[in-house]
């Protein structure tokens, strides 16, 4: 992408030597553009051919890879592509709290080795398929209760009334905090990641609320141990010492910022898909044995999460130079649509056999909660189909999509029958 540019005559390339030559998607993509949020797929397809590692100056500047092989390789460029600041838009210096170690942290997602390794090992046993058995039972009961609440009305908002309600309750239960916190959790997560992404003061406000809440919970568990994740983390040792409070608070913070709107986006996207694609909906009713591959396919196609990395030094990759400090968007959703790795990537194929999707990332930062997310998605969709096998999108124009780092539908009105 850089070898065709005549830098002596192209003013754009001249001013920005590492970028693609023309003012277009490749040099000016906008991750918050409503058209991009509705249909990022065509943008990725265009970029993959024209400029597979694109750049924009918007929102502080970032790089956007779109090829599967590049995402695979870049995920393994550790620690030169650091995870210490995984949010796409950095907080202004004035709002960054530097007074306390790890104040902005959510280990292991916001850590590099070695901290990434020991915090991850502390967390993973609680998120294996067997480690989440209790959450599965709870999720099944929860999904039935939610459906009980609206099935008689013959309609609901599948995003607001269902998808959005499941992960915060599962996470609250896992952490061991009162279920009455759920509405707060939803507000806090949207405040930090959805609305707060472009509003730093809002993000700082909710960051502090979350941190203060979990600092109190951790202090409580030190005194009054319970049978929950917060207690388990408080009792975990690293090199003979209990994990410090700051680290445990950060790991609790991670449960909220990584475990809630991500999963509700996946559940919401799947229901949006079936509500608008009657052939696929009927196929799942007729062939429930396809759920295993169908869930992986929906994860591939509607992968919600884009994490960020920062270059810790100047590094050349794929014909571009990431300068020290540059932000790189780990466009796992884009990789999942690369035709070099997925046959007919723009089709949802519920029985897709070859599907090495990287919706949960790849390498050492593979989503620690991926099994929990997959389980919630499976239970949410199977329970919905068992109770409400026939449903359609009642008002397609009312559907809205949130984006930035977590893409998913926020309004999905459906009618039953």
């Amino acid at each position: 992408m850089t070898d065709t540019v005549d830098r002596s005559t192209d003013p754009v390339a001249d001013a920005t030597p590492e970028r693609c030559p023309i003012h277009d998607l490749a040099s000016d993509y906008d991750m918050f553009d409503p058209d991009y949020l509705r249909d990022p797929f065509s943008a990725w397809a265009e970029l993959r051919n024209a400029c597979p590692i694109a750049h924009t100056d918007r929102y502080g500047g970032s790089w956007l890879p779109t090829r599967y092989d590049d995402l695979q390789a870049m995920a393994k460029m550790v620690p030169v592509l650091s995870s210490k600041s995984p949010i796409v838009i950095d907080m202004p210096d004035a709002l960054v709290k530097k007074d306390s170690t790890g104040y902005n942290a959510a280990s292991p997602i916001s850590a590099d080795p070695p901290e990434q390794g020991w915090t991850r090992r502390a967390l993973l046993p609680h998120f294996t398929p067997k480690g989440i058995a209790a959450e599965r039972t709870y999720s099944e009961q929860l999904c039935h209760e939610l459906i009980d609440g609206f099935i008689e009305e013959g309609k609901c908002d599948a995003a607001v009334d269902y998808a959005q309600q499941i992960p915060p309750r599962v996470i609250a239960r896992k952490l061991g905090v009162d279920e009455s916190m759920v509405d707060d959790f939803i507000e806090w997560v949207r405040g930090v990641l959805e609305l707060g992404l472009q509003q730093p003061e809002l993000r700082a406000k909710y960051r502090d609320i979350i941190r203060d809440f979990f600092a109190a919970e951790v202090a409580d568990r030190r005194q009054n141990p319970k049978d929950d994740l917060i207690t388990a983390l408080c009792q975990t040792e690293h090199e003979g010492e209990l994990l410090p409070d700051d680290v445990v608070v950060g790991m609790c913070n991670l449960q909220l910022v990584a475990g809630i709107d991500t999963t509700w986006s996946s559940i919401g996207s799947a229901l949006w898909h079936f509500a608008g694609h009657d052939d696929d909906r009927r196929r799942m009713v007729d062939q429930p044995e396809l759920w295993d591959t169908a869930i992986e396919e929906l994860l591939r196609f509607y992968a919600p999460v884009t994490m960020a990395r920062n270059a810790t030094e100047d590094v050349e990759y794929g014909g571009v130079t990431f300068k020290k400090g540059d932000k790189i968007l780990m466009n796992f959703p884009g990789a999942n649509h690369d035709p070099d790795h997925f046959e007919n990537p723009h089709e949802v194929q519920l029985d897709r056999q070859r599907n090495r999707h990287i919706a949960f990332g790849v390498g050492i930062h593979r989503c620690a909660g991926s099994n929990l997310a997959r389980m919630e998605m499976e239970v949410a969709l199977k329970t919905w189909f068992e109770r409400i096998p026939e449903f359609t999108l009642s008002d397609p124009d009312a559907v809205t999509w949130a984006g930035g780092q977590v893409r998913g539908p926020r309004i999905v009105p459906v009618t039953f029958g």
Partner: protein
Amino acid sequence: MAIGVPVRIKVDAEKCEGHSRCYALAPELVDVDDLGNAFELNDGEVPEGLEDKAKLIVDNCPEYAITIEED
């Protein structure tokens, strides 16, 4: 895959990052440890009739950690 030839799967522990997708798709063939990292059941030998599932978990591993070996 030739008919009647025993099929074995092998999980490369160095490559596995604990996605557990193989376990979700074929718990008859693999299990996972406390970190979610996969290991073969039955020394990797694939019971007759499950050859398609073996192929499926190979083709769904995002880390390219699972391979099929024919004896």
